[in-house]
């Protein structure tokens, strides 16, 4: 793991480190060589770690007051809001924290898409990331059910019914998920258990995500392989720690704005009505971070195909390292990809917008076009672009465009050998 041997200075430290090399690990993390041109889009990894810890800590506290029972869950949430000391604050942080978590993860994912961070040799980091993203969606959905309001109940009904689209065994699976013939108390208690479990699974995967990252090292805005350590790198501490810390403070301002000024703007008023199995709210809309996929689900007129399209829209991301055939990572040197990238961003935003609107008329038409384009981007545009696109010259090192020459002698030799051919 470490590029150089580390020996603790103190005798006690050495004694302990020989038995459990925690100090070597700490040294690896602080001295870890990072590209010196990392921009602020790279600070979202740290921000996401903060989000995960925030959700776990506030969630633990909420679980001390919440009661997972169909007759008491709604009241216990109101009890948290009204009676528990600072309960309102902790719950608002947890509820808005989910939105902040997704905001950060979307920026993190689109950073990766722009700078080609998913490409070789970082495919495993990327796939672990997609699994984390799937688990985040599961955790968010399960958590949204717990207050047992109208949106909780009907959201749970709609999402679990997605499984009924599976031929033959679908209905049996749904009954099994519910523990009954409808969403009810057995469903609530198991959702609470799983909601409690998933963050710890995510935590474990985050460790693997970072471990896998530390094998090839960070990608960077110009997407070239850099030698580490070299003149192109700086130690993680203090350089990146300070930069991440500053970005985190900026992020916390946004977070605090939502918690203190508009704590309910991202939720639905219907969820302050207790669950009623006899009345479906007039507009069932998922949380904003699931809307693009919801739009894809609704744009397909067939039940099973709609579910398949929605799942494929997420799972297609896992195949991205092989669908993108371009050897150049960063969009900085890919003039055409850069344009398609922004079209994709617009496409996803449009899907999100129509996902919140009723599925009829013009909205439905737009949703269908945007869905078709989403798949076209990954299945046609990206594979073809790798062969057709004329990329602009990629510098040999981070310092080369500014200082000329390269600190990376091996790369210079490689460039010269290309010239000879």
């Amino acid at each position, binding site marked *: 793991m470490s590029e150089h041997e580390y020996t603790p200075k103190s005798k006690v430290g050495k004694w302990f480190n020989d038995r459990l090399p925690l100090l070597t690990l700490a040294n690896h993390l602080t001295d870890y060589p990072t590209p010196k041109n990392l921009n602020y889009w790279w600070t979202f990894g740290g921000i996401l770690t903060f989000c995960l810890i925030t959700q776990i800590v506030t969630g633990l506290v909420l679980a001390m007051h919440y009661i997972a029972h169909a007759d008491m869950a709604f009241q216990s949430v109101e009890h948290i809001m009204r009676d528990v000391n600072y309960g309102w604050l902790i719950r608002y942080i947890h509820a808005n924290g989910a939105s902040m978590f997704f905001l950060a993860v979307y920026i993190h994912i689109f950073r990766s898409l722009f700078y080609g961070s998913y490409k070789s040799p970082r495919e495993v980091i990327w796939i672990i990331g997609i699994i984390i993203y799937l688990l985040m969606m599961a955790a968010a959905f399960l958590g949204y059910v717990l207050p047992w309001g109208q949106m909780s109940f*009907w959201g749970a009904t*709609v999402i679990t019914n997605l499984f*009924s689209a599976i031929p033959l065994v679908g209905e049996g699976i749904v009954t099994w998920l519910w*523990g009954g*013939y409808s*969403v009810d108390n*057995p469903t609530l208690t198991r959702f609470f258990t799983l909601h409690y479990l998933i963050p710890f699974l995510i935590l474990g995967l985050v460790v693997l995500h970072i471990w896998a990252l530390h094998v090839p090292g960070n990608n960077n805005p110009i997407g070239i392989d850099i030698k580490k350590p070299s003149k192109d790198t700086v130690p993680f501490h203090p350089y990146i720690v300070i930069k991440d810390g500053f970005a985190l403070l900026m992020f916390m301002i946004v977070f605090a704005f939502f918690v203190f000024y508009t704590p309910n703007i991202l939720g639905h008023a219907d969820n302050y009505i207790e669950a009623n*199995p006899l009345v479906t709210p007039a507009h069932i809309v998922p949380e904003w971070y699931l809307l693009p996929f919801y739009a894809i689900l609704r744009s397909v007129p067939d039940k099973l195909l709609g579910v398949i399209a929605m799942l494929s829209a997420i799972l297609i991301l896992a195949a991205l390292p092989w669908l993108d055939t371009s050897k150049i990572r960063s969009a900085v040197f890919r003039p055409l990809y850069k344009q398609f990238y922004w079209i994709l961003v617009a496409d996803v935003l449009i899907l999100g917008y129509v996902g919140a609107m009723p599925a009829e008329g013009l909205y439905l038409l737009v949703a269908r076009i945007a869905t078709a384009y989403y798949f076209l981007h990954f299945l046609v545009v990206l594979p073809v672009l790798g062969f057709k696109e004329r990329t602009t010259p990629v510098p040999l090192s981070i310092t080369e465009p500014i200082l000329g020459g390269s600190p990376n002698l091996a790369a210079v030799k490689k460039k010269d050998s290309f010239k000879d051919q």
Partner: protein
Amino acid sequence: MSEKKTNRRDFLFTATYAVGAVGAGAVVWPMIDQMNPDASVKALASTEVDVSTVNPGKTITVLWRGKPVFIRRRTPEEIAEAKSVKIEDLKHPEKDEDRAQNPEWLVMLGVCTHLGCVPLDQKGDYNGWFCPCHGSHYDTSGRIRKGPAPTNMEIPEYKFVDANTIKIG
């Protein structure tokens, strides 16, 4: 190692794996099956409803197995409309006679077959039900006519115990 293709040790490995797999399955199954409906849920399987107060053109909704059941006393126009539909025009072809034992009374699960929402009464393009979640339209017989739902609304097992009482389940 010997050149023989299979030997005693291979047999022992295979036998051990097989017995191990059966043992693991026996341990895993209770863990999976515990999530299925339990005895107390299954015990609430039937319910009796007094329908003497329901006038023509009205629907009552009762809860059965945690799900709403619509009991609608249909008007003669609605019955005529339901019977006049050509069977070829239906996405899920079912005759009205097969859905309502007594044409005046339509008893069905008030659950949209798309993703399980409760459709709204007397709404939609076919004067029957309309599901607000994803826009499925049902006719006066509860049959799917337009929208993403794959099948007609389900008819539960029910019978008239007497003229004014329906037993569902």
